[in-house]
């Protein structure tokens, strides 16, 4: 069930806590990397695989929530589980609003922590998959010529070839050729598939 690539990043300024958490995640079959500060972690990026960050709140220089904000700004999609020795409600609420998977207080039971970490990894994996699909569609969209793109826009809105020819003032036969190329380049077997791909890529569909 655990995808082998998923990795747990531990960020905590306390070396003994880092070591203990590392052991715990390894005992649950996870790979880990540990960092003493937010800066060390940022220096290690980019990271391509799936995984999650187990993040301490109270740290010198850059605090956990500050790192969280920075990751959001830079589009670093790793899910975050906060682990704090000093859980105050406002910090917790803020973290959850920003999209943290959980906000746990030390000392934390292994079941709770591991469940949160698994969820975070799953969430990241899902996000990752969506992102990858979107990127693939975007790459295909980029292959279309201007005319093909115009034709595609009409197709996904449910227009008939005849209507498209009239709208674009081109021959019906030409529309058919463009339409065939669009389906080929976008690797879609049906109009339904094409609509789905465009939705994923955020192409505007409604009129």
């Amino acid at each position, binding site marked *: 069930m655990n995808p082998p690539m998923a990795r747990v990043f531990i960020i905590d*300024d306390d070396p003994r806590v880092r070591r203990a958490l590392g052991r715990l995640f390894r005992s649950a079959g996870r790979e880990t990397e540990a960092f003493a500060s937010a800066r060390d972690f940022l220096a290690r990026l980019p990271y391509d695989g799936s995984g999650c960050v187990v993040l301490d709140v109270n740290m010198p220089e850059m605090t956990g929530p500050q790192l969280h904000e920075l990751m959001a700004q830079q589009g670093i999609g790793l899910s975050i589980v906060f682990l704090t020795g000093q859980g105050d409600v406002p910090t917790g609420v803020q973290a959850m609003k920003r999209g943290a998977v959980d906000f746990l207080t030390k000392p934390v039971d292994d079941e709770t922590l591991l469940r949160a970490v698994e969820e975070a990894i799953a969430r990241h994996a899902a996000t990752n998959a969506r992102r990858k699909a979107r990127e693939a569609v975007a790459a295909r969209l980029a292959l279309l010529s201007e005319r093909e793109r115009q034709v595609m826009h009409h197709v996904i809105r449910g227009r008939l070839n005849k209507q498209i020819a009239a709208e674009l003032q081109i021959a019906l036969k030409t529309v058919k050729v463009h339409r065939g190329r669009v389906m080929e380049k976008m690797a879609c077997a049906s109009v339904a598939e094409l609509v789905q791909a465009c939705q994923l890529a955020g192409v505007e569909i409604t009129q």
Partner: protein
Amino acid sequence: MLRAAVSLLLVLAGAAGPALAQAPAAARTVLVLSSERSDLPSVPDFDRGLRQGLAGPDIDYFIEYLDFGRFPGGAQAQAMARYLRERYAGRTVDVLVAFQESALEFVLAQRGALFPGVPVVGAGVERQSVDGRTLPSGVTTIPVIYDYRRTLELALRLQPKASEVLIVHGVADYDRRRGEEARQAAAGFAPGLASRVLTGVPLAGVEEAVQRLPGNAFVLLVSMVRDAEGKALVGQDYAARLSAVSPVPIYGTFGSHVERGTLGGAITDFGEIGRATATVVAAALAGKPAPGSIAVEVPETPLRVNWRALEKWNIPPQRVPAEAQTLFRELGVWEAHRDFVLATLAAVLVQAALIAGLVVQLRRRQSAEAAARQAEATLRLAVDALPIAVIMVNQGGVIVFANPPADKLLGYGEGGLAGRPLDRLIPERLRSAFGGPGDVFMTASKRELAARRKDGSEIPVEIVLNPIESGIQRLALVAIVDQSARHELQRKQQELEHITRVATMGQIAASLAHELSQPLAAILANSQAGLRFLKSGKGDLEELRAILQDVVEDDKRAGEVVDALRSMLRRGKTESARLDAALVVRDVLALLHSELIAQQVEVTTALAPGCLTLANKTQMEQVVLNLVMNALDAMRPRPADERWLHIEVARGERTVRIEVRDSGVGIPPDELGKVFDAFWTTKSSGMGMGLAICRSIVGGCGGDIEVTPNRQGPGVTFAVTLPCATG
């Protein structure tokens, strides 16, 4: 209650009776030759001590003042010799006492011609003038010591930052010898203490020089029998004059100087030398041969401090060593009634002496009954009317009577104390310190003790001893002042310190929870990882060993936090021990570790190793904790990247210095002087006691605390200076 007292007086009178009758036939003659005149304070002190020690009617006591300080030279000595020869031609002198060196030298030169074969006791002579010298047979000495080293020690104890001593002495031979001793004592006495000698200057010049002294100096006033203008001076007068104008404290070895305004010193007690001389004279009168060149070792030089002078020169009273005798010390209730009590005591004393005399006379007239009634009535009136507890003790250490306040204070019913041994009132552990029943007759003095009540409970007391000289025998009047109130005050101070510590702990409770949750989290994660490894069979033995090792260490870490907490929450006892200042700082920073991170304060330290001081750990941690907490408060309004804290521990010449420097908002210049006052605060929720308590704790260790604005940038530096613990 008074029967015992009165019968005692009667017994005394009875014992003295036959002696009085034989007196004319058996009278022995003691002649004292004093080197100096009678108005130098050492001379009457010695005279009084000697007379007290020799008390008894069968001695004819003469004293002559050679006054060689004002009449130096051989011709004067010859004139004096002629005078003495003629004056004492018709008498047999049994023992000759020469007080101080000049008189002894004179006697040694003239003894053959003036008083051949008469035993000689040289009293109060300098040790050097006797050492390595064989004195003629029949001559012995009681040396004296002028303890400049202990006086310097006292000065540095009271002024730990002093860096200069001005040694002042006159031009008489005596002055020069003392001055040389003082100079040798001061040379290299302590690193960083420069010494300078001022002599050959008239008193007015000394006054001017003293006025120019910087604040980190002090004066060692040695002796000025004669100044540079050849003017003969009296100790009390120049000591008072210099004390009046000097901006810095004056120390010295003469008790009379301290009484007239100098700060204190290791005192050469001439009364004590007189009493020691009396025992040697008594032995000589009894025909015992002189024991050699030194009869009695140098009597002790007690530390004595003038309490009013402390105030005058702004020396914190906490720095006064516990063993020092204090003059003019004022203490709450006692202070308010002091004059009244002393006056009353004096009245009782006089009355007691009168009664004793009366009893003697009446006894001679065989009317003891009348005398007893008279004595009983007068004493009952006088002592019973006293508002404080008074008991009277005889030479056997038995309480001959006690007034109702004494019975009440000590928990005995009316009349319950009379007839009991004094020992009953002194807890066993203090008996040796008290020195036994005879000790109460040594001198009129004041000391602190604990008294044991009838039910075995103890109360802190201060006692005032007054020996009553009846002329025949001695009784001691002991006034007992209950000090419970003062001890209660000390207890409240401790309570306040404790409350403040607890309040501070409350402020950082969240951080402390964090500090504890770290090791607890590590322990839990480690243990559960171990269990999982075991369950899955994946972990090897080495891994499990490492896990258990970490669990043990994290548990210890949690234990340390708990220990530190417990230490801060502890109440009461404030015993001092040698303490490493760096360790104190480290412990406090460990306690505040999470708080400092939470407040995003950058901490740097420079902690010199081996900076030891004598203090209580909890109290010192409270001081440092308080200073750091204040720094955090001061930095809160500042941007996070401009908050830094620097703590330094360094060793001075005789001090240990702890500095806490912050980049906070600072303190307005006109407020700097007030920060240590009670109730000074900038915080809406603060009590304003933190720094006041810091100062009282630091002062109690003989140290100092001060605050200065940082030279560069914002913020302030608090500096705690403590005396170095040596050895």
